[in-house]
């Protein structure tokens, strides 16, 4: 009988305890760990096009999402799950995120069709470019390639082959041997700006620009909890973010496309205040921006560079400003081909670089708007 009392009591304490806790708990609007806005209590009715009200047909599903998103001690429960999965069930990854030597990465399974579609989309954009431009492309390997541990990795040789088949007319610059596991943040998918000199060298060499050793000043921001920190829900040591400045950056100006007015407005290279925001990596060139123009009248050459890019180029482009008098960064995830033609004027004899990370290349739906 005592056993039955204890079992019933424990069960009732937990379900009633958590009911009461959830009723009194005021959940945050954002999850910093997960980098997203949490679902709020859904409306039981919805407004139709004619202004009338009817029952919200999705209320049940939305309420369940809200109940999970607003659950008391949500991050703690996620951590419990991650620990159970890793330490009890001995599974190697959680939601596709794994940890090796204190660094988190994502399992990427090669989607050859998607890679081909991405390359075909880029090839279409190439047709907009003046004949005189020098066109290059590269794929930024995912950090997992260098981390070891026997986790599945995409076949990069096959990726290079697919890209080459679909991007005739563009010259490939390999970055495979320029990076190491330490060149990436432990808690984020991105590379570390202070470790990018081999990448800069390889790109410049490929584009026929002479490299010269830089003189950087290092600025430190910490702690940096990258995107994988929240997804892994496991205790990972925080990263330190470093951004590089120096004399070479003094004369560089940045202009950003304002999506409302379609005008280019002045801004900073490094947005340090964003370090406290939802995505600290936005420190570099303000994060997700459709079009950025960097000008450097004191560059080592008067060449122009156009980079069709994703977020990785945000930390790379300031380092290339030493060598190019003008760098235009175009994020095709926010641009259609028609918009590119309308908003970007390509100069003759410019260098054009298609530079995308592995995760974007592997998912053609991410790579650009049609």
């Amino acid at each position, binding site marked *: *009988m*005592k*056993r*039955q*009392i*204890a*079992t*019933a*009591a*424990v*069960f*009732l304490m*937990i*379900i*009633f305890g*958590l*009911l009461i806790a*959830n009723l009194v708990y005021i959940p945050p609007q954002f999850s910093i760990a997960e980098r997203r806005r949490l679902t709020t209590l859904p409306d039981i009715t919805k407004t139709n096009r004619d202004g009338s009200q009817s*029952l919200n047909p999705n209320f*049940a*599903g939305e*309420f*369940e*999402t809200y*109940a*999970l998103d607003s*659950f008391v001690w*949500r991050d703690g*429960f*996620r951590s*419990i*799950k*991650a620990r*159970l999965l890793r330490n*009890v*069930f*001995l*599974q*190697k*990854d*959680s*939601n596709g995120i794994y940890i090796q030597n204190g660094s988190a990465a994502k399992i990427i*399974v090669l989607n050859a069709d998607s890679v081909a579609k991405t390359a075909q989309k880029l090839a279409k954009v190439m047709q907009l470019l003046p004949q005189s431009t020098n066109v290059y492309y590269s794929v930024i390997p995912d950090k997992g390639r260098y981390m070891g541990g*026997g*986790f*599945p*990795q995409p076949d990069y040789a096959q990726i290079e082959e697919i890209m080459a088949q679909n991007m005739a007319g563009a010259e490939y610059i390999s970055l495979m041997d320029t990076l190491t596991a330490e060149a990436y943040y432990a808690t984020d998918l991105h590379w570390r700006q202070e470790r990018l000199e081999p990448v800069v060298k390889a790109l410049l060499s490929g584009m026929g620009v002479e490299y010269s050793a830089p003189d950087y000043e290092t600025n430190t921001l910490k702690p940096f909890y990258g995107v994988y920190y929240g997804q892994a*829900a496991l205790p990972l040591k925080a990263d330190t973010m470093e951004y590089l400045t120096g004399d070479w950056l003094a004369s560089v100006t940045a202009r950003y496309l304002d999506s409302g007015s379609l005008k280019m407005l002045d801004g900073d290279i490094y947005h340090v205040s964003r370090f406290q925001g939802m995505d600290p990596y936005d420190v570099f060139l303000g994060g997700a921006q459709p079009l950025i123009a960097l000008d450097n009248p004191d560059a080592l050459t008067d060449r122009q560079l156009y980079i069709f890019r994703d977020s990785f180029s945000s930390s790379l482009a300031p380092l290339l400003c030493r060598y190019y008098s003008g760098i235009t960064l175009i994020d095709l995830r926010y641009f259609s081909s028609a918009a590119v033609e309308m908003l970007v004027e390509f100069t003759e004899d410019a260098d054009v670089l298609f530079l995308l990370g592995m995760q974007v290349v592997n998912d053609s739906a991410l790579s650009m708007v049609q």
Partner: protein
Amino acid sequence: MLFSGATFLYYFLPLVLTVYFICPRGLKNPALLLFSLVFYAWGEPKYVLVMLFSIVSSWLLGFVIDKYRGAAPARAALATSVALGLGMLAVFKYADFFISNANGIFGADIPLLRLALPVGISFYTFQVLSYTVDLYRGQVRLQRSFVDYATYVALFPQLVAGPIVRYATVAKELESRKHTLMGFSSGVLRFATGLGKKVLLANVLGELCQIYRQGTENTVLFAWLYAVAYGLHIYFDFSGYSDMAIGLGRMFGFSFDENFNYPFISKSITEFWRRWHISLSSWFRDYVYIPLGGNRVSPGRQALNIAAVWLLTGLWHGAGWNFIVWGLYFGALLLVEKFALKGRKLPALPAHTITMLLVLISWILFDAPTLPVAIARIGRLAGVGTDGLAGSLSLYYLRSYAVPLICGIIGCTPLPATLAGRLAGRKQGLALVLEPAYVALLLIACTAYLIDGSFNPFIYFRF
């Protein structure tokens, strides 16, 4: 609303338990009925009317059956009940299947009805028919109270995914049932175990199946990983839900029959279907097979009866050719066991191995979106159309899912329950701590998985 969801666990269940146990005896059924209707309407507000129509019509027809039992009006009322029940199933579940096949065969262009399938219609229709048929047969008494009858049909523990509870099973408990601490705590234990099966095993193994379906690697190892994982996934998903239903029933004083009895220890297909989804197979036996003559007819007719039952069983699971083939597949195997093997048995290990292989193949049929996909997946088990024995992905997932797979394989045997039973019997002091700790750990672990995961509907939810 799902049992394995935050809405049910931490909002609905505490509320219904509170109201139910506060209510005096005379209001307990109305309270259960009200909450059951809310439970159903939560996800399907307009289709609660379909269920209510089924309840009202069968209850009213029950009066005619009872008054004129043995006479033509009773037969007519029974026929009407069957026609209404099966008619609703036909319209909501099978109409578009028949229309699209007719269009394909005759080149017609009949528009599809595109009706959403009311959740649980296959379950509550069979429950309603069990009442009217058993009433006609004189095996149960007329239920004069609409509230009690509606409570039986709509009872939320078993409403949307079974087990199929016969009216005869709960007739007495509807009117008079005991609420004991022993019953409640055994219900808690059963519910928690079912929740753990669903969230910690079924959902996890389901992830592996989903990875396979994405077609990332085409090797023999991955094909076998998928086959085993899917078999365990569907077992723990469905038996876990049944455990939760039975456990909830016990909390409210009801005793539902068992729906699973360790089917994966079976040494023949006949035995498998005595252990798997027992409520469904026994329903078809009692309401289709035996009325058709059962095994008291000529062998030829008996074979036809078996084929008919298994055609219907396949169709019950889904409006698709793969389900029909799945049902007929089992029908054929049962015919072989009955007429070709004639009770001859192999030694235990080969019998068990062959049975499990045949069952695994059946689940591939069950899961495939089309027959050609099913055939291709089955072929890969033997290396047909594969790119090799194993690859980096399959080896990785074998390592990564080894513990859940092993837990699943052990968990589908009587071993854990046997050990727990011995512990409870011999070490009562230890069991006093371990049993509530087990329930607490399961609840916390499952809550953690639910919060981290996403919406996770049961496989059998589409029936």
